[in-house]
């Protein structure tokens, strides 16, 4: 009887003993989860994603947690939708359904800003390789430059499932990507001011025509998918899903599906994706030198994206004889519609009569397409090189 009682008591204190003996990394991760809770709840930093990620992180770091064991709940979610890349793709259906490409179709040349806003991907890739990351790790880290959480998770997980990068790295990359996306309003304005003159920032751009036919809006996702399929078929799941969501919406004949894509599908996928990603953040695997480097390189990626966009804006300003405001280039990243709003605010800061929003929205939706296209092209090249 005494032995049974002692055994029962020991079982109840096993977690506390584990924490005392080996729980240092787990305690740090629980503290990190609490910081994420604070940022999401008190500061409103990407709460949709950060909240479930933080909760997953908390669950997996409690002592002797079995949430990520082979039969654990978070492992089941991970296998259901991260291991096979399903959840990021379902989120893309929602994003496509929520995005209005009318400003881009009204001014298609602004799509080029979406290319310049991807410079960070490739510069970060070179930097990561120089810092000693493996080729697969460098590509995964570079994907942060896409400024697009689902793309980062999709790309990095392709490598994680082939054991070419540690699975814990997917969690670090996702958190870094979403954190920096949330910090875009802090990161971008100083770069925009640093790289442009007052005269350039004051350039007033005329309002775009704005009108686009419904037929053109319906044809748009089909054209984009066909081009992606021909040039970069490896990225077709990414572009295909974002365009599917948009097609459902602009077709106008399936409002229930459009509503489901925007709400139920996007919300449920976001919750499950966040929890499963948080589940990969177990302290002993997460707290490494590489994780810190991932955060450093993520900052470089987002910064150089903005630099690339603004520099193209300056070239365009020069080529157009001063008719294009270079600030618009900063919106060529995928953080939508945050980057467009920043351009509008910065533009009005220097010229109160300036309304850059529609131009910036066009560049910003171009950035969304550009980020997915850059990832698609990168994956197709990697397949060609025999790495994927």
């Amino acid at each position, binding site marked *: 009887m005494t032995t049974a009682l002692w055994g029962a008591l020991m079982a109840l204190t096993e977690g506390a003993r584990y924490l005392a003996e080996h729980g240092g990394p787990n305690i740090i991760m629980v503290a990190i989860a609490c910081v994420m809770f604070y940022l999401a709840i008190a500061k409103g930093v990407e709460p949709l994603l950060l909240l479930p990620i933080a909760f997953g992180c908390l669950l997996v770091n409690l002592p002797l947690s079995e949430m990520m064991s082979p039969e654990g709940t978070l492992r089941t979610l991970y296998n259901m939708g991260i291991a096979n890349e399903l959840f990021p793709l379902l989120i893309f259906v929602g994003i496509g359904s929520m995005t209005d490409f009318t400003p881009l179709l009204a001014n298609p040349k602004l*799509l080029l800003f979406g290319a310049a806003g991807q*410079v960070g991907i*490739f510069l970060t890739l070179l930097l990561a390789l120089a810092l000693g990351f493996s080729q697969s790790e460098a*590509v995964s880290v570079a994907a942060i430059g896409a400024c697009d959480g689902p793309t980062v998770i999709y790309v990095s997980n392709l490598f994680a499932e082939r054991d070419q990068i540690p699975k814990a790295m997917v969690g670090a990359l996702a958190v870094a990507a979403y954190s920096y996306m949330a910090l875009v309003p802090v990161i971008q304005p100083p770069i925009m001011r640093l790289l442009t003159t007052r005269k350039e920032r004051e350039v007033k751009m005329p309002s775009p025509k704005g009108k686009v036919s419904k037929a*053109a809006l319906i044809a748009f996702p089909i054209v984009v998918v066909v081009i992606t399929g021909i040039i970069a078929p490896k990225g077709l799941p990414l572009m295909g899903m974002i365009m599917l969501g948009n097609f459902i919406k602009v077709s106008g004949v399936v409002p229930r599906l459009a509503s489901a894509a925007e709400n139920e599908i996007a919300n449920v996928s976001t919750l499950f994706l966040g929890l499963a990603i948080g589940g990969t953040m177990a302290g002993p695997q997460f707290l490494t030198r590489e994780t810190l480097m991932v955060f450093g390189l993520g900052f470089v990626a987002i910064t150089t994206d903005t630099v690339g966009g603004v520099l193209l804006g300056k070239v365009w300003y020069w080529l157009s004889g001063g008719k294009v405001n270079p600030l618009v280039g900063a919106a060529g990243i995928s953080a939508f519609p945050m980057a467009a709003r920043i351009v509008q605010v910065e533009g009005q800061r220097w010229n109160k009569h300036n309304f850059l929003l529609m131009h910036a929205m066009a560049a910003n939706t171009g950035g969304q397409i550009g980020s997915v*296209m850059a990832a698609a092209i990168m994956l197709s090249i*990697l397949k060609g*090189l025999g790495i994927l």
Partner: protein
Amino acid sequence: MDNTTFGLTLAIVGMGGTLLTLALMALLLRVLTAILPPEDSKEETK
């Protein structure tokens, strides 16, 4: 493949490919909006 060759190949072909594909897409979108103009602009031209 060594890291330098890998990185430069991916950076040059990747960035170049992205830029060219988006330029092609912009061109096609311009054609698309020209052949499928808004209804009111069709009426204006009648």
